[in-house]
């Protein structure tokens, strides 16, 4: 029973972390049909930015709660700047090219941004543990659960719900849906598709940076951290279906629970199990769980 509880809690925490990262990735693909490898760099910049600012903030002696505000607002700031710059400078001139070319463009952007990151922050590690430690933990029997992790679960769920509401109940969501289904028809009805692309890409960049920013207090922020997470996020997005928010959420939960179960019960297959889940789903539904063959949707 204790192990089952641990698997569920650990699985949900892991799923929340992966979902926050994967959300921006699936949003950009759903609307723009771009497999954005540079998402890993948004994640890294978000982590470094939050770690630096929290480090500076913690020296002021002000309440630790301010660190949570820094996580949110630093991610928004970084996502705005990087997302807009990348879309405007590198992607916009390439929209008419094949999707494979766009993947290569984002990959080269990723490599360049990793080097820029090193120029700014160097190769040393940064810490931002204060918010993580400050909220403490709860004990349930022999289990000890970090309150930061519980907050992360709630945050990821709220983010998913907000994304769903935005797409299904807001005017912008309806416009996005129109662009997703038929870009040319949407244009003929007066939708400014380029503007929609800019907003979508910046939103995706903010979400990528947010993934890094919420992770920063839990880890040592080091060069290369975006490489590992982008592979995992791709797996989650592939399971759920490229471009589906619901799919990303379900994919994240499947991956999280499978990994947690493996760690607790069969640790030797922990690495294998994530990709086994992905392979199993894709063998059954090559388009992923929540992607319709005829029409992509968010």
């Amino acid at each position, binding site marked *: 029973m204790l192990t089952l509880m641990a698997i569920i809690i650990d699985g949900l925490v892991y799923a929340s972390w992966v979902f926050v990262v994967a959300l921006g990735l699936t949003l950009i693909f759903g609307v723009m049909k771009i497999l954005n490898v540079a998402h890993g760099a948004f994640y890294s910049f978000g982590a470094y930015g939050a770690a630096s600012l929290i480090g500076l903030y913690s020296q002021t002696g002000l309440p630790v709660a301010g660190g949570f505000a820094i996580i949110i607002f630093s991610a928004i700031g970084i996502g705005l700047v990087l997302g807009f710059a990348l879309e405007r400078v590198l992607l916009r001139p390439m929209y008419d090219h094949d999707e494979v070319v766009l993947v290569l463009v984002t990959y080269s952007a990723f490599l360049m941004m990793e080097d820029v990151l090193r120029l700014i922050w160097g190769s040393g590690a940064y810490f931002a543990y204060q918010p*993580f*430690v400050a909220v403490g933990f709860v004990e349930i029997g022999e*289990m000890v659960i970090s309150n930061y992790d519980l907050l992360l679960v709630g945050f990821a769920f709220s983010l998913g719900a907000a994304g769903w509401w935005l797409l299904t109940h807001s005017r912008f969501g309806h416009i996005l849906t129109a662009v997703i289904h038929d870009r040319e028809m949407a244009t003929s009805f007066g939708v400014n598709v380029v503007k929609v692309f800019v907003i979508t890409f910046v939103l995706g960049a903010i979400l990528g940076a947010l993934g890094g920013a919420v992770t920063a207090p839990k880890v*040592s922020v080091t*060069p290369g*951290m975006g490489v590992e997470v982008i592979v995992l996020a791709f797996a989650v997005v592939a399971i759920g279906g490229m471009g589906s928010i619901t799919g990303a959420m379900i994919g994240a939960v499947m991956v999280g629970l499978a990994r947690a179960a493996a760690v607790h019960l069969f640790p030797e297959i922990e690495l294998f199990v994530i990709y086994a889940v992905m392979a199993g789903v894709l063998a059954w539904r090559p388009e992923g769980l929540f992607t319709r063959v005829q029409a992509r949707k968010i």
Partner: protein
Amino acid sequence: MWKFNSAVKAGSLAALVSVAGATAPMAQDTMKVGVVAFLTGGASGPFGIPARNAAELIIDAINNGDMPGAYATPGIGGAQIEPVYVDEAGGSTTQVTEMRKLVQQQGVGAIVGYISSGSCLAVAPVAEELKVLTVLFDCGTPRIFEESDYHYVFRTAPHATMDNVGAARYAMDSMDGITAYAGLNQNYAWGQDSWRDFTYVMKQLNPDAKITKELFPKIFAGEYGAEISALLISRSSVLHSSFWGGDLESLIFQATARGLPQRLPMILTTGETVASRLADKLPDGTIVGARGPHGMLANDSALNTWFREAYVKRFGEEPTYPSYHMAQGFLGLKSAADKAAAAKGSAPDTEETIAAFEGLEFEAIGSTVKMSLAGGHQAISETAYGTFKFNKETGTPEITNVVRYAAECVNPPAGQSSVDWLKAGMPGATCN
């Protein structure tokens, strides 16, 4: 062959090496040395950059004759070192290509490098083919010389078996009532070999203790929530981990935030590397090692004092064990070349330097290194472990209850592989 940019002035060199404490380097006589370490990627921060920093420091000091004691003579074998830095990132195939470039295009006379065991395994045969004297300074796998014989390859750092024999011995020496133990190690050769060696020794020293968890998360995973939960409910007495760098720091943050160290004291074989950086974030009572007597575990000596002060002055931080290992590599090379030069009375060639290197015993920074294994190509040294404590009064990290284990206590004897030695119950081990 040594590569001199100009003809060696044999008479001058003979005079140089025969006069202890000679002051003037032969500025026109230089030798290119390849220096290979991770300069980019996840391993650069904790390993590659400290190693490169140490290389810069030690090369300048060797060229200028600024080092204390036996190393005060300028140059190696009388020649000034001209370093050629190469990034170790990119994988084994890249490193093989880079080694060929170093030798065939750059004309290096020797190479000091390689942190990754994968790199070492890949380049060692190529070094033989190219006939280039190669000093492996940091990689840990025992397989290098246990699976092959090399003439041109030396390793001046002990291999990883020492780290885990020392860890197990210290755990048994310093902790009471270990009835069960768990392992959390990265899922590649380093982590798997470390855990294997640790468990072999524990089975010898404490056969009644049970293994409760054997966890191998992916390297650079960063998120260890499930692993920490599994350890929390494992009812183990102690946790062994060979984590390093950012993974180690992330583990410490996440474990501490959930009270793991209070329930399950940690043995961290590379823990010293983060002791200064994390300070009070590293839990008191954590057992730490440094892959030898390095950093805060180094023996007091004039050389160690000079190295630490010079490193802090130049780079603004304390040197960790990769820095010590890099310096050790260059000191080994210098000792061998100087010995060969002194015997010959002029600049030695590669074969003469190799002959001097085999079986060499030299003073490193914080320890004495003996090239005892693999026909004199593999180093052994003593090692040290201690218990971390943050001194709140002084605001400084400390390592207490330091125990030093003689080289012959924690390393296999010549002619026997690590695994065979451990399986046999470490016959011939001579401890303090």
